[in-house]
């Protein structure tokens, strides 16, 4: 009899440790969100390299357990997930991602037509539009800045800035940024169509000229010196971006460039995605602030896209006939590389089946990466 009661007590204790005994509706909601991410990635191929790790991370982070000091959860110091999460909280995954992005990005389109850089600058209005709205909604300036950076459409930059300015909102900001980056094909085309005329959508741009090796090598060097002398607080991101690009373009560090744009960025992307996902524990994540951040994130993407398209239309007023820019590449000023450039191409082809805008759109697209990193540096300098 004693033995049976011992077994019964043990089973009852074991039950208290299971997820079934500890789950809340919040956990269920978050698990559904995680499953939705995985569905979007697998069935719709929306940013699978981001949404699969994040979606699965959400599942990992929302399996409830009894807090018995077993070092399991991402917020428990010393747990495996917590150690991996340090790369997010301390902000050293984003610069490593930027190193890889630099090593895989071809800036030729931008170098051959440098005026496209200005579109990348204009699209950063999305960041500050969301900043203004967030302030009116009652967020503190540092929180508003961290939320606004979602409009840069750059996940690593969003994580980097929020880890410095508003660490408590980082999970929601990261998830929001990556979600909307995945939804670029849904968000951007209607805005592009709304703000352009049929005539503007079929503008043909001059083919980009061939860029010499010297120009490609000079770009990361001048890029770093000019941007970081102006905004030293952008150094971790811009420094790594341009370093990666120099590895690629120098022509003498092929192995390093291949590692940076291959295995290294893959490893960091996996760790970043899974830990960001796991950081969305329902108890920490399901708040009104998270809902507001999602709303603001959507708004910032809309503003950024509209600002890019409208800026091109404005710019065209000052350009000679034959040098005009197709406003459908304005959306690419947000730095979701290369998705937003691909959207320019797809929408452009709908109206002229032989007008290929991809190479032109890559210019503002990579300028957007630089622009959002500079904007993050400015915000960090002012509010950090």
């Amino acid at each position, binding site marked *: 009899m004693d033995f049976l009661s011992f077994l019964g007590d043990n089973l009852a204790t074991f039950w208290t440790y299971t997820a079934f005994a500890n789950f809340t509706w919040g956990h269920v909601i978050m698990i559904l969100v995680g499953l939705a991410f995985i569905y979007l990635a697998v069935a719709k191929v929306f940013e699978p390299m981001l949404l699969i790790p994040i979606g699965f991370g959400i599942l990992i982070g929302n399996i409830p357990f009894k807090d018995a000091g077993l070092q399991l959860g991402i917020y428990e110091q010393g747990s495996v997930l917590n150690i991996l999460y340090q790369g997010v909280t301390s902000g050293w995954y984003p610069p490593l991602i930027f190193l890889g992005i630099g090593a895989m990005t071809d800036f030729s389109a*931008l170098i051959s037509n*440098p005026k496209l850089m200005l579109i990348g600058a204009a699209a950063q209005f999305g960041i*500050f539009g969301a900043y*203004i709205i967030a302030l009116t909604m009652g967020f503190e*300036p540092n929180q*508003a800045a961290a939320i606004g950076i979602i409009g840069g459409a750059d996940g690593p930059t969003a994580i980097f800035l929020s880890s410095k300015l508003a660490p408590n909102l980082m999970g929601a900001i990261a998830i929001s940024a990556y979600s909307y980056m995945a939804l670029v094909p849904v968000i951007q085309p209607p805005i592009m169509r709304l703000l352009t005329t049929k005539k503007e959508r079929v503008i043909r741009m001059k083919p980009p000229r061939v860029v010499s090796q010297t120009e490609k090598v000079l770009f990361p060097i001048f890029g770093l010196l000019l941007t970081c002398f*102006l905004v030293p607080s952008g150094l971790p991101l811009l420094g790594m971006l341009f370093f990666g690009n120099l590895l690629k373009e120098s022509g003498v560090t092929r192995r390093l460039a291949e590692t940076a744009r291959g295995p290294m960025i893959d490893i960091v992307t996996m760790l970043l995605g899974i830990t960001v996902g796991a950081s969305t524990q329902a108890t920490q994540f399901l708040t009104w602030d998270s809902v507001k951040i999602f709303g603001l994130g959507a708004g910032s993407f809309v503003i950024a896209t509209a600002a890019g398209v409208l800026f091109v239309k404005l710019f065209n007023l000052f350009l000679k006939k034959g040098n005009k820019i197709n406003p459908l590449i304005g959306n690419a000023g947000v730095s979701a590389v290369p998705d937003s450039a691909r959207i320019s191409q797809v929408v452009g082809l709908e109206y002229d089946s032989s007008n290929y805008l991809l190479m032109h759109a890559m210019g503002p697209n990579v300028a957007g990466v630089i622009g959002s990193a500079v904007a993050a540096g400015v915000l960090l300098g002012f509010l950090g």
Partner: protein
Amino acid sequence: MKYKILILVFLCAAIGIQAQRTTSLRFNEILVINEDNYEDDYGNKYPWIEIYNSSPGTVNMAGCYLTNDINNPKLYMVPKGDVLTKISPRQHVLFWADNRPSRGTFHLNFTLDSIKPNFIALFDSDGRTLIDSVTVPAGQRPDVSYGLIEDGWTLKRLDEEIRLNPLYKGGNQLWIYFDDHVNDGRYVTPSSNNKILDTNDKIENFKENDSKGIGMTLTAMGVVFIALILLYLIFKLIGNTAIGLSHRRAMKASGITKEEAKGVVGQSGDVYAAIAMAIYEATELHDEENTILTIKNTARNYSPWSSKIYTLRETPIKK
């Protein structure tokens, strides 16, 4: 010559590294007459000296010397082998001037004079390099400490702040008195920051003067545009130069003059395509084997990890 430049670069780097070490230590706050202030681990109240690590890296002050006699710089050596002598970035350690070094690492072998001025100095482990020194004026009051207006500041740093920061309201004195009985927000703070940061001035300033965010938007967008306009201008210039050079090279290679080139340069891509097609049609010498596509498996029997070519570094070009 090249090696000399290399050595110079390494020396400069070494000096830079040194700057992150003991040279970042500063006397931060000193209490000469301790009547009712901080107690040591033995429950005694003695004068104390707070040292601050102003660098962003951990500094180990083991082996450094503290003294109150300029002629005897090696009066008290901070013992080696105590992990507590490692000072975390922007943190403090406290030494007791109780003349009881047997009580532990942080108990000095000298005291401070409550009547005369007190000179104290910190020397590096060579016993010759002065890291920091301060003379605490005579006439110190009980339980009133003498410290830097902001942790780790120097005169240069204070001057910069006064010159560049219009929001700075701290006055022009580097060393000030901290008295718990005067309600000016300056408290005696052993082993803690002299200036207690309970708000972020930058954020407060934005909340007060730019509650709508318009100022931030204009400023930040201005900076983003300036950064990218600068890049645009530089690469416009570089691009024009590159185009000019490639034209010149092409003209030289084909032996045509500038005047002759004018007729060729500036044609559209369609014209070039038509010319290329015409040349192809006119000079078609190959038979049909040229259009046969061959698909053949390629075997890669080596791995980059085992290849000597991959693992060896290239020899530097010495020209």
